[in-house]
């Protein structure tokens, strides 16, 4: 097991390098960092521009430039943002913390209810409950997050205010304007709608995964064997059914992080929630290379990390893989 983990870990480093190089290439071609620097700072002297090119590794030679950027990145000499020369790390750190909070809340809520719905649907396939859960999940998958976000805002904020005098949930930010300090209740209230938008997608996806996975397991021979041994139905379901049904679901969960982050980006933008998504869309719109590259590294690293988790959890849950 340890050797398996180490081998996978060793592979992820070259992958990280290759992918960040591709991202570096794409951003250099797609956003033209030097031109955007000149656009944002029209009065920058020639020396300033040369310094910008140097610290960001924007040499004409892409490979050389990438390694220069990589060296600066690893040694912690991160260039400052092109607009207002802000430090990148504090902004990135705050965005990560905010997104982690929203993402964790949505994932926990989403997977919890998704799995429960899936199990309920699979217990009586074809029944009323199954049809209801399945159809709702289908609708949930078909509705893109920005549509549900708009609808929630319209219903719970704008029209709630019109009908009842006060909006039920706020629609933007983490705290009301001018608020300072930490207030858990207020923060949760601001998180309800964005969490709901992301969680709906997760619930819809996982109830379907869980349903089909559990159905496969329930029809298998070892379930019949377990039942024939005279174990209670509940124990059969929990000990034999759930555990085996969760194997594919866990793997998909870890591989699915990209799409959850995708939903977060869209949701954050609509609710003006200051996380990774808002950070990305802002800096991408301005072509802010110094802000974008570290963001990309974080995203690439987390996608690879969760891929790794998927493989390891798969090997851990299913002993057959470990033996190979």
């Amino acid at each position, binding site marked *: 097991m340890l050797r398996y983990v180490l081998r996978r870990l060793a592979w992820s480093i070259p992958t990280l390098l290759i*992918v960040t190089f591709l*991202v570096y290439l*794409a*951003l250099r*071609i*797609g*956003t*033209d960092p030097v031109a955007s620097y000149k656009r944002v700072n029209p009065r920058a002297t020639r020396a300033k521009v040369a310094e910008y090119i140097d610290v960001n590794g924007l040499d004409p030679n892409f490979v050389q430039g990438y390694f220069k950027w990589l060296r600066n990145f690893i040694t912690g000499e991160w260039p400052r943002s092109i607009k207002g020369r802000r430090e990148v790390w504090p902004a990135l750190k705050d965005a990560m913390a905010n997104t982690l909070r929203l993402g964790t809340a949505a994932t926990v809520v989403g997977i919890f209810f998704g799995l429960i719905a899936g199990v309920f649907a699979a217990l009586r396939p074809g029944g009323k409950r199954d049809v209801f859960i399945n*159809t709702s999940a*289908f*609708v949930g*998958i*078909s*509705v*893109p997050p*920005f*549509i549900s976000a*708009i*609808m929630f*805002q*319209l219903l719970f904020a*704008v*029209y709630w205010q*019109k009908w009842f005098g006060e909006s039920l949930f706020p*629609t933007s930010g983490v705290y009301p304007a001018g608020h300072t300090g930490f207030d858990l209740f207020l923060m949760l209230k601001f998180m309800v709608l964005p969490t709901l938008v992301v969680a709906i997608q997760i619930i819809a996806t996982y109830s379907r995964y869980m349903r089909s996975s559990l159905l496969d397991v329930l029809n298998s021979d070892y379930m019949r064997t377990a039942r024939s041994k005279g174990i209670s139905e509940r124990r059969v379901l929990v000990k034999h059914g759930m555990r085996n049904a969760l194997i594919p679901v866990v793997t998909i969960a870890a*591989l699915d*992080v*990209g*799409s959850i*982050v*995708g939903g977060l*980006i*869209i949701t954050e*933008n*609509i609710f003006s929630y200051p996380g990774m998504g808002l950070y*990305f*869309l802002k800096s*991408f719109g301005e072509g802010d290379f110094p802000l974008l590259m570290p963001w990309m590294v974080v*995203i690439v690293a987390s*996608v690879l990390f969760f*891929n790794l988790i998927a493989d390891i959890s798969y090997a851990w849950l299913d002993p057959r893989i470990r033996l190979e």
Partner: protein
Amino acid sequence: MAFRRFVSHRAAVISCAIIALLTIFVILAPLTARYGVNDSVQGPPNSFLNPRSNAWLGTDDIGRDLYSRLIYGVRVSLLIGLASAVISVTLGALVGAVAGFRGGKFDDIMMRVTDLFLAFPFLVTLLVVRNVLGALPWLRPITGDMSSVRFIIVLFGLFGWMGVARIVRGQVLSLKEREFVEAARAVGASRRYIIARHLLPNSVGPIMVALTFSVVGAIIGESTLAFFGYGPQAGDGATSLGILVGAAKGAVQTGYWWLAVFPCLMLIVIALSINFIGDALRDATDPRLDRGV
């Protein structure tokens, strides 16, 4: 057999009717729309009128009829969906078939690349690829201007093939071990012949399913791009579903509910209908179900 199974899927049949009706509506746009795409409903004041008899679904900020604009918008969006799906399915089916049939290094690399692409947040990849496509001058004759509808079609055509390639590859991998392929190989059929005459025709089911999902993907993708201000800027007031949905963002806080509700509902109806059709197609063409019937 497959057809009967498709027809027994009630939601899919209703969805087919809805999509057919919509298609007729948008093809006959000059007749079914009550106003031109750029015409105001009445003289000023005409902006933000709520739904009424001379504007069934209300008007937008400069007094244009939302109902008529929805028809013109859906026309452009369906075109984007269909055209890019055809490109991506053709590309994906070819790549998937070749990768699945030949195996080896080509297969490894292809699948690594698609895995990587599919693992990333959709919007990020889309925006970055969009900018890269727009920045390459030698692609200009194919893609056209970055804000054109053609650019969006090419973008989603190039973007959507990976999912299709994966599906077709899986199908080909299982097909190539079957007896009829072996028989074809035994009588000396060339690789190209086997792929074109045996593998691809036998993958029509999954390919059709992939096609429906690509259409939805492109329509939702266009709306997402437009929502964040990176969509097509159709000239002369021409519109797309994405542009209309994008306008909903500004209408929410001010309480012009019709500008948000109707385009969003239309998008949901289209996405749901095509998804239902795809789902029923998948069930109908699944060979595993054939034996039972």
